[in-house]
């Protein structure tokens, strides 16, 4: 009986079994950012410990960075304080820092892959739940808390239980106007926001085989929204082609050895899974969330489901969602007025996300509706520069979008980009929790970047296939 990638990588990184019954697992890559690391460094120092593998630890700043101007000191003293703390910690412990000053900064889950730090067959952790993103490369990647950040700094290991593995296959073809984000929202809608608790998700099937790395990242990013701490795709030629030539990718003879190792970590054809589910890609439509969890979604042409369509145990959350969103059950989603449109985040803030929109708006005279504030926020400074070099900033600005500096921006409420009052935001991010985008009453509708663009232009939720004239 063969093994899954998850089992192989877990076993190769197991240091030993601990008396608690958990395993001590070695981490191949530790990414840190300003929000969840300062307390970890303090604890480390209180205990008189140092960083065991500084060369396997990489830092950047993303959550608190303003996207209108990145000039220091930041206007927000608290944010500036966090910058200073991080700078001090990385200098003291000799950790490689992708900094603002050097124009290398970006969302931690964008810069890891972009620089070739994220590689197959690794274990990767970061004090951030969307670390699952890196699983797109066939790594076992997961979010950790601050005390675990302390442990990984001190020992490059953490204690973990073994997860079960659910293989999620999406076969066939996706229709026009259906993107990786829709696949992610569809899966979470089917399996529930806690359906993945206790599991790692292996994403597979024809749709994932054809996906680019950036598309795979979008789906793995949202594994955590389905309750699965890790999600991964087996590495293949697409993965290796993406990695070739990146800053931290192996070179020369080491490249061949690396590919051989990466290949060896792929799930065996006869691997045993704890669960397997299969979907037909043709069934998936452009999705949009209507509620306060990423699972509360509907195809864009659908209606907000009735309470009776849910199981008893879910109805309270559903009532809470209707009340918070001020939406009526049975109301169509299409036509819902929006105030803000946000394209960015570690889910959908990469080149292909922006290009998908550009390809549809370029030279066609589309303009953002006058009442909508629309933001384009690249996931990293490197990407931003590439976009400017290609003239993308101009196309977006001419169409009425604001083209911002790199950062987490409106994905969460830690920097100046926030919703106000009860504003409704069409967002390419990953969480529609109450208050997530900065206003305690703000409302988030998750959807793909192309759907966000369609909403920005129409002024309300709209089927991108109609707005842009897409046909199968």
């Amino acid at each position, binding site marked *: 009986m063969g093994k899954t990638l998850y089992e192989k990588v877990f076993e190769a990184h197991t240091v030993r079994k601990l*008396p608690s019954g958990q395993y001590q697992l070695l981490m191949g890559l530790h990414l840190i950012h300003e929000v969840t690391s300062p307390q970890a460094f303090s604890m480390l120092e209180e205990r008189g410990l140092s960083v065991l593998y500084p060369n396997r630890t990489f830092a950047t700043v993303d959550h608190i960075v303003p996207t209108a101007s990145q000039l220091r000191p930041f206007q927000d003293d608290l944010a500036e304080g966090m910058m200073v703390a991080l700078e001090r910690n990385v200098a003291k412990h000799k950790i490689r820092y992708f900094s603002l000053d050097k124009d290398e900064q970006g969302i931690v889950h964008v810069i890891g892959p972009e620089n070739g730090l994220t590689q197959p067959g690794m274990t990767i952790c970061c004090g951030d*739940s969307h670390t699952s993103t890196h699983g797109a490369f066939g790594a076992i990647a997961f979010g950790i*808390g601050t005390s675990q950040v302390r*442990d990984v700094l001190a020992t490059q290991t953490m204690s973990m239980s073994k997860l079960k593995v659910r293989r999620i296959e999406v076969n066939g073809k996706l229709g026009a106007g259906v993107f990786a984000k829709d696949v992610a929202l569809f899966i979470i809608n089917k399996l529930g926001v806690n359906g993945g608790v206790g599991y790692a998700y292996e994403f597979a099937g024809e749709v994932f085989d054809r996906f680019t790395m950036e598309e795979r990242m979008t789906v793995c990013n949202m594994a955590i929204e389905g309750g699965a701490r890790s999600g991964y795709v087996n590495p293949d030629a697409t993965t290796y082609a993406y990695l070739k030539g990146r800053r931290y990718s*192996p070179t020369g003879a080491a490249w061949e050895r690396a590919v051989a190792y990466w290949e060896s970590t792929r799930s065996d054809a006869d691997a045993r899974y704890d669960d397997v589910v299969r979907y037909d890609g043709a069934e998936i439509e452009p999705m949009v969330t209507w509620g306060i969890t990423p699972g509360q979604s509907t195809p864009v042409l659908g209606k907000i489901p009735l309470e009776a369509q849910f199981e008893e145990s879910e109805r309270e959350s559903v009532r809470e969602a209707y009340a918070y969103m001020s939406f009526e059950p049975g109301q169509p989603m299409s036509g819902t007025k929006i105030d803000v449109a946000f394209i960015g985040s570690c889910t959908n803030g990469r080149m292909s996300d922006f290009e998908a929109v550009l390809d549809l708006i370029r030279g066609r005279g589309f303009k953002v509706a006058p009442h909508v504030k629309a933001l384009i926020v690249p996931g990293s400074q490197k990407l931003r520069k590439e976009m400017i070099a290609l003239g993308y900033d101009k196309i977006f600005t001419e169409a009425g979008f604001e083209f911002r500096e790199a950062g987490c921006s409106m994905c969460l409420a*830690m920097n100046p980009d926030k919703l106000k009052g009860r504003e409704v935001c069409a967002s390419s991010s990953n969480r529609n929790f109450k208050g997530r985008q900065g206003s305690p009453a703000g409302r988030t509708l998750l959807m793909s970047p192309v759907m966000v663009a369609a909403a920005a232009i129409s002024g309300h939720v709209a089927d991108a296939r109609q707005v842009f004239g897409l046909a199968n």
Partner: protein
Amino acid sequence: MLDSKRIEISGPAIPLRGNDIDTDRIIPARYLRTVTFDGLGEHAFEDDRRALKAEGKLHVLDEAKHASGRILLVNKNFGCGSSREHAPQAIMRFGKGIAAIVGESFAEIFYGNCMMLGIPCAVVGASQMAELLAAVEANPELTLSVDLRTRTVKAGKLSVPFEMPEGARTQFLEGNWDTTGELLSGHAEIRATASKLPYFSDFG
């Protein structure tokens, strides 16, 4: 360390109803702009509490009758969303200090973060949770006890079994849930494991 043992935690409870309560609600992101965990307690559930106040209602955390609560009762998938440890850090600093959580299920990262902080999370069945919530709502002064030796939550006449992985339970009972020391003691094995992984040295 004697006081690191978690054998039986007892005290009044706070019945916090609702599924899928995420860590953004437990501690809104704006309070993450800090380099310490001090003072987070007073901001726990701040937006939920404010929203209810604006409607002239009180959040359960603000009700005087629950002011001395030490055990938090929750429903399903508690602590989902962001991995921020600030969430359990805020909970353990709230009011008199929450020392244990009893719920139907917990999000994985949240559960692990609680472990690291010495906060036992006890998992009970849905119908038992309903009984516990009802009992505390009917009698806010009721003393609950979460007994890790017998894996039971007791509340007056109610006695409810709970689930907890054996390893976690032992760590709480023995007081060695703080993992750093244990992990450090594997130093030689850590180096040995690293040396067998090709990418640690060979892909340069």
